[in-house]
């Protein structure tokens, strides 16, 4: 099975979040990037497991610049066979999805996997757009994925239970928690990654539809107020008049 896994970077969860240029740009100074966990732990590892059981090839793709090759190397160290970097700033979901779809079209993949979202922008849009551009089925937020010939069986969590769906390949699936277990790259993997192929491709021209007007940080966490359990009226009053949530 020929699998394409889309990986993107996201700031390490311990990074200090700040903005520059009058709050219109994310301040990258001192920020360390990691592979977006949904892409790494679930999409990539499940792709590798499938390859290990039914054979095939796992290609990873990212839209980004040279600095992003560190996340590519990590994905290769975990076990992907080869990598593609579309050499461009990933400006918005439409731009990224278009680039990925163009590459996928030319290279006949049976399956395209992504994480269910990135943990920085939480956009959840790329996978659906890629499926649309490729004109293939899309299943979102799968927590389990099995392959039988050209049939994919997927589990998706829904309110109060599970939903099992089948789609046929080629297809795009976005992966959620439960799909696989994190793999830590071992030394053999890190050594092998040194020589695995990394292809850098120029982006195709795409109109950019989004611009970022401004960013702001969430309000600082307020101190916790304890209310005596016997005093329900006060609690209701505070929730209604002060917090304005009921």
């Amino acid at each position, binding site marked *: 099975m020929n699998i394409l896994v889309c990986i993107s970077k996201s700031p390490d969860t*311990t990074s200090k979040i700040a903005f520059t240029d009058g709050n219109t740009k994310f301040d990258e100074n001192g920020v360390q990037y*990691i592979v977006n966990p949904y892409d790494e732990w679930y999409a990539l590892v499940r792709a590798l497991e499938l390859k290990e059981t039914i054979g095939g090839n796992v290609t990873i793709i990212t839209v980004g610049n040279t600095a992003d090759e560190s996340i590519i*190397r990590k994905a290769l160290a975990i076990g992907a066979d080869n990598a593609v970097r579309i050499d461009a700033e990933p400006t918005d979901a439409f731009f990224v999805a278009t680039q990925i779809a163009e590459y996928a079209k030319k290279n006949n993949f049976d399956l395209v996997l992504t994480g269910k979202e990135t943990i920085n922008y939480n956009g959840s849009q790329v996978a659906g757009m890629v499926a649309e551009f490729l004109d293939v089925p899309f299943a979102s937020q799968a927590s389990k994925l099995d392959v039988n010939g050209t049939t994919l069986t997927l589990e998706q969590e829904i309110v109060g239970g599970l939903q099992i769906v089948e789609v046929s390949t080629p297809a795009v699936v976005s992966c959620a928690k439960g799909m696989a277990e994190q793999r*830590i790259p071992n030394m053999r993997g890190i050594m092998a990654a040194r020589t695995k192929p990394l292809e850098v491709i120029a982006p195709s021209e795409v109109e950019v539809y989004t611009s970022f007007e401004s960013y702001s940080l969430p309000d600082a966490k307020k101190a916790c107020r304890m209310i005596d359990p016997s005093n329900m009226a006060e609690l209701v009053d505070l929730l209604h008049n002060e917090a304005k949530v009921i």
Partner: protein
Amino acid sequence: MKTDLYSHPDYYNLDDLYTEEQLLVRDAARAWVKKEVSPIIDEHYENATFPMHLLRGLGEIGAFGPYIPEEYGGPGLDQISYGLIMQELERCDSGLRSTASVQSSLVMYPIWKYGNEEQRLKYLPKLATGEMMGCFGLTEPDHGSNPGGMTTNFKDAGDHVILNGAKMWISNAPFADIAVVWAKDETGRIHGLIVERGMEGFSTPEMHGKLSLRASATGELIFVDVKVPKANILPNKTGLGAPLGCLDSARFGIAWGALGAAMDCYDQALRYCKERTQFGVPIGSFQLQQKKLAEMITEITKAQLLTFRLGQLRNEGRATSAQISMAKRNNCEVAMNIAREARQIHGGMGITSEYSMMRHMANLESVVTYEGTHDIHLLITGMDVTGIPAFARDMPDLSKM
């Protein structure tokens, strides 16, 4: 179970200077430590047991001989990667790092540098995976800071030699499959010998009662007329300089490792300062606590820069023994001070195994002692800058005073 929340302080954006591969190696080691070691380390420390089941995993993350070339089964990493792995291990526990340091710098290094091709091919690949473990016997009951005075010796007996003597304080000894032992020949010259478990007359009793480095196994090496084949003698370097060359490599790893322990203590202290409230405010809002944190991060940053530069010099083959010695001494001292301050910031909680400072503090007492005590390293720097060795002196004749 408590979660290991560690993230490293990087005040001067040093991460920007590491290569992609160095960061990958470091992060893999950290992820492995958080998953496999953090949850169990306290139990081993309290019970004074070495977590034997981790050996394979240590091999997989490249902790055994990271710089050993691929042709001998190593990953062929650079010295900074070696340092970073040691830092991640000791960030969790000095005992764990000790096992990896000994295997890498005191067992694999001499076989690689002073051994012949047969010895390299026979031992290094298995040592790299952790399938075979080694220890290093230099210190003797009566010769610690002065290893040159050793009395362990061997006599020529045809195709083999007969080894006699005893070594003490030997990390990994209780479970090691092989020991790189330093002993004098009949002319008094020091050689390295590979002694294998099972050789008649060779035993490795464990030392008990350690109140430091409890998750590391320490023992004695006792040789009573042990027949060691001549093929097991390391041929390519003899004299005290041979074991000292190993110590250079190990001390380099310790400099990185001790700094890891300091970084772990600081990381926890910073978090605790923001979370713990007294007198209605976080304790981190008090100037006295901020002073502690400010001094800690300053010392850590200085040590990080020192260590990084040392890594570059070592990669270029230019780091002197004295430069390595300075980093070992400085970083151990910095780590000990930071462990104590961080423990104080935690108040009573700081003395429990809920936090790692107290364990680090006790461990660092060994780390500051082995591979040259703090004093000995001061003498090394002193000699380096003055040109005058001050290690030994004649005992004054007290009767004439």
